[in-house]
């Protein structure tokens, strides 16, 4: 904290710094000083090189833009808050932290701010004409009003057929010079990163008719975009010249709706955000809530959280591994692994009562205790899985064609990976040894023994290898959880309607896709004031997008497959 103060004073930035226990040091700077402060923090001996998240909070009078930063060197968290008036201009910081590219667009759009200095300042999640949804002035409608909307008849022909197409809303991207018009201070970038500038050429009118470039839409309906991701690729032959990811086809307001749900019901929404690893999203929210409310979680509940989390991690990695095989053209891995996934879902159903949307981890503990049948099933599964995972390893990873397809494709070196805010297996595949389970232990992970697999190459194959090894480690942890499950209550005594005191907290877990964080602001009522969901897949997507140029179509497919995108989480 004192270091940060010194750094900011040296940079002549007026800042008020306080320490919030569940958050770290919180600096508040004025909007004109924001860029200067961020550069100073990045380049100082604090070495805050990693932008964890960027989002906004509507305080009722203005919008607070929150830059959540992390210093790996000092293992510290730092939160910079900048106040912006409604409708004011948000200066882009993508040249300081490339990870800000997409979150900035999203924040500007959902809070109704102007985005300046951004290479691609288009709307990210919604179509033109949508109001800034996350403003507090926009109240989620009551049931009656909703009923009116439900009875509305929509004429199919009135649908804007060009909505989201290239023709509508494709602005001349123009190469934004970093901070040229905003701030005279030149910013030395630590290392030139591949910067996604959207499509290089604005395809409009005459230009595209006489071009030898193909502009190809991949998605939203495409067999290998895993949901509704849309990539617009500009192709020269089969080679990608430039590419842009268009998202928002599944934007359904999880963050907004959470503000109208009770604490115990937010999990319902979070499950559907990251829909293949619901336990992790619930857990992140529960951790944040417990930090604010000061709830002590029983040891047994922590073990159950780990147990279910790791089971869920295997299930989630399977939905990555199988489609990864499909993306590269192999059908076998998909069907073989889904055999295991069925078993896991059976176990999860046994314990939680649902196959996918558990709402099992709640603030204070978990909902149900483990059943005896589930315990037997887990033991049987672990024996079976140990064989299957080796089989799968040989089947796909050992295949020469797969190796030729994936090695050396989409390489992120350390700096690029950190710069784009990659977390989880993508980051570990690039040689950064960082795992929240080990480095910021939560639940019972400090009592469990496991290795964190790391690969140096940073290519598609490395990410695959890391994930496969993670499955083995998960199996190992599950066995430890089952063997060492402590006796006791499975939940703490928590009020039926939880009203945590006003406060702010950040709960992060290592989800299968990376750091899944929930930044929670409470105002003392029975529902959160603001819940920010840090989507690791969004950061993975923008990193993947930056890697597209120079690849072939087939490479783009495996690259996006290796990022393990879950569009529910990307769009929220």
């Amino acid at each position, binding site marked *: 904290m004192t270091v940060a103060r010194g750094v900011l004073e040296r940079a002549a930035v007026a800042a008020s710094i306080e320490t919030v226990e569940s958050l770290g040091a919180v600096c508040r700077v004025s909007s004109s000083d924001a860029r200067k402060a961020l550069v100073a923090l990045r380049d100082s001996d604090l070495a805050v090189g990693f932008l964890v998240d960027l989002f906004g909070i509507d305080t009722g009078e203005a919008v607070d833009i929150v830059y959540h930063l992390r210093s790996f060197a000092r293992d510290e968290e730092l939160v910079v808050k900048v106040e912006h008036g409604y409708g004011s201009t948000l200066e882009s910081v993508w040249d300081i932290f490339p990870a800000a590219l997409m979150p900035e667009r999203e924040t500007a759009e959902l809070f109704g701010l102007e985005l300046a200095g951004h290479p691609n300042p288009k709307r990210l999640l919604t179509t033109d004409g949508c109001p800034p949804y996350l403003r507090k002035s926009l109240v989620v409608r009551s049931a009656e009003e909703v009923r009116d909307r439900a009875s509305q008849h929509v004429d199919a022909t009135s649908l804007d057929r060009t909505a989201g197409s290239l023709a509508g809303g494709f602005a001349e991207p123009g190469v934004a010079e970093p901070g040229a018009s905003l701030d005279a201070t030149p910013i030395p970038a630590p290392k030139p990163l591949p910067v996604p500038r959207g499509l290089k050429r604005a395809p409009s009118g005459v230009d595209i008719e006489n071009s030898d470039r193909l502009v*190809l839409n991949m998605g939203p309906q495409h*067999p*290998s975009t895993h949901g509704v991701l849309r990539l617009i690729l500009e192709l020269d032959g089969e080679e990608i010249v430039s590419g842009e990811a268009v998202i928002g086809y599944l934007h359904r307001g999880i963050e907004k709706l959470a503000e109208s749900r009770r604490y115990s019901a937010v999990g319902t929404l979070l499950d559907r955000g990251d829909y293949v690893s619901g336990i992790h999203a619930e857990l992140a929210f529960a951790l944040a809530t417990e930090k604010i409310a000061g709830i002590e979680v029983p040891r047994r509940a922590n073990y159950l959280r780990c147990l279910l989390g790791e089971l869920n991690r295997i299930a989630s990695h399977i939905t990555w591994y199988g489609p990864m095989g499909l*993306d590269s*053209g192999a059908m*076998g891995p998909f069907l073989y692994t889904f055999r295991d996934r069925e078993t896991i879902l059976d176990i999860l159903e046994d314990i939680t009562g649902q196959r996918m949307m558990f709402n099992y981890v709640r603030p204070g503990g978990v909902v149900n205790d483990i059943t005896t049948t589930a315990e037997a099933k887990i033991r049987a599964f672990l024996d079976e899985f140990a064989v299957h995972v080796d089989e799968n390893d040989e089947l796909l990873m050992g295949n020469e064609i797969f190796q030729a397809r994936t090695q050396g494709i989409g390489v992120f070196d350390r700096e690029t990976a950190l710069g784009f805010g990659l977390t989880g297996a993508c980051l570990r595949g690039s040689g950064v040894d960082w795992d929240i389970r080990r480095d910021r232990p939560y639940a019972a992970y400090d009592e469990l023994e496991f290795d964190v697999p790391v690969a140096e190459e940073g290519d598609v194959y490395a990410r695959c290898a890391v994930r496969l090894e993670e499955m083995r480690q998960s199996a190992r942890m599950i066995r430890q959880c089952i063997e060492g499950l402590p006796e006791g209550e499975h939940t703490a005594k928590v009020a039926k309607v939880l009203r945590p005191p006003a406060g702010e907290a950040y709960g992060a877990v290592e989800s299968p896709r990376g750091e899944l964080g929930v930044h929670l602001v409470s105002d003392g009522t029975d529902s959160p004031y603001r819940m920010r969901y840090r989507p690791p897949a969004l950061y993975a997507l923008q990193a993947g997008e930056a890697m597209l140029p120079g690849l072939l179509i087939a490479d783009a497919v495996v690259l996006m497959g290796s990022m393990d995108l879950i569009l529910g989480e990307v769009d929220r």
Partner: protein
Amino acid sequence: MNAWLIAVLRFLAALGLMLFNGVVMIYMLRKVLARLHVRLGPMDNGPHGMFQTVFDVLKLLTKEDVTPRAVDKALFFLAPVIVFVPSLMAYMVLPFSRTWVILDVPYGLLFYFAVMSVVPLGILAAGWASNNKWSFIGAMRIVGQQVTYEVPMLLAALPVVMMAGSMSLSDIVRAQSGTFLWILPRWFAFNVPALVLFFIAGLIESGQTPFDLAEAESELVAGFSTEYSAMKFGLLYLAEFSNVFLFSALTVTLFFGGWQVPWVSADHVQWVAPIVFMVKTYIGIFFIFAIRGTLPRIRVDQMLATGWKVLLPAALAWVMVTGFVIKVGQALVGPR
């Protein structure tokens, strides 16, 4: 009998066989893939789902045929013809038994290659005419496929021609009668490198995994047939399966003694010969489908590199080695 009548009857036989193959192979593909993938495959429609393909065909026949506005209409209709007819014509030279050959000509092998090299043209036409970007990329890939497979395939078949001394497929089958080394059937399959090279080139030719680049479901949606619906799609699909059958049949003819039963004189297999041929062919098809269910897809530049930097030099070298071995053999035991 009138030559025209015979020709028409034989055409009908070939057509019937092609349709039969299509129906059986699509069912077989779904069943084989399902069994490989710990599933059951079609079960409900007919005993073990046997009539599944019949229902599929009937449904495609009664489905609306959409012609998108932007297509090149003439070529869009013509493309299924260009794909279908050569595939049907290739059946002409296949020897199903000693006498069951529709067109027994001394240049049978070349005829087959010539006719089958028209098929990619039809697929190119289909993809181009669709005026759809996915189809178009698929169509361009099929040209790359042809550039890759044709030379290695011709060269890989060359040792067979050298050993048999004939390009007539019937003669090649006849040359594989009897045994050598006391026990082994005199199949050219024992020329293993030639077989392997031929098989890989053939996988590229028939567009099967790992070389299913023109269709490439996970990359190009449905490849060249993306815009095709109803029976036009059905015919393209049928021709694709027919090509797999033809390739397997040619492999059997060139390398596995065609309709002959090992260790049995050709005189004794007159009536079972077509059955033997079909059984052998379907075993080959099973292998192709098993590969289809297992391997990932190769990338298009890697396919070309494989064809030109591996298959072609290897095939050239093997032609020389075979030539040398034949000459040495002739020097040792005298001409055959």
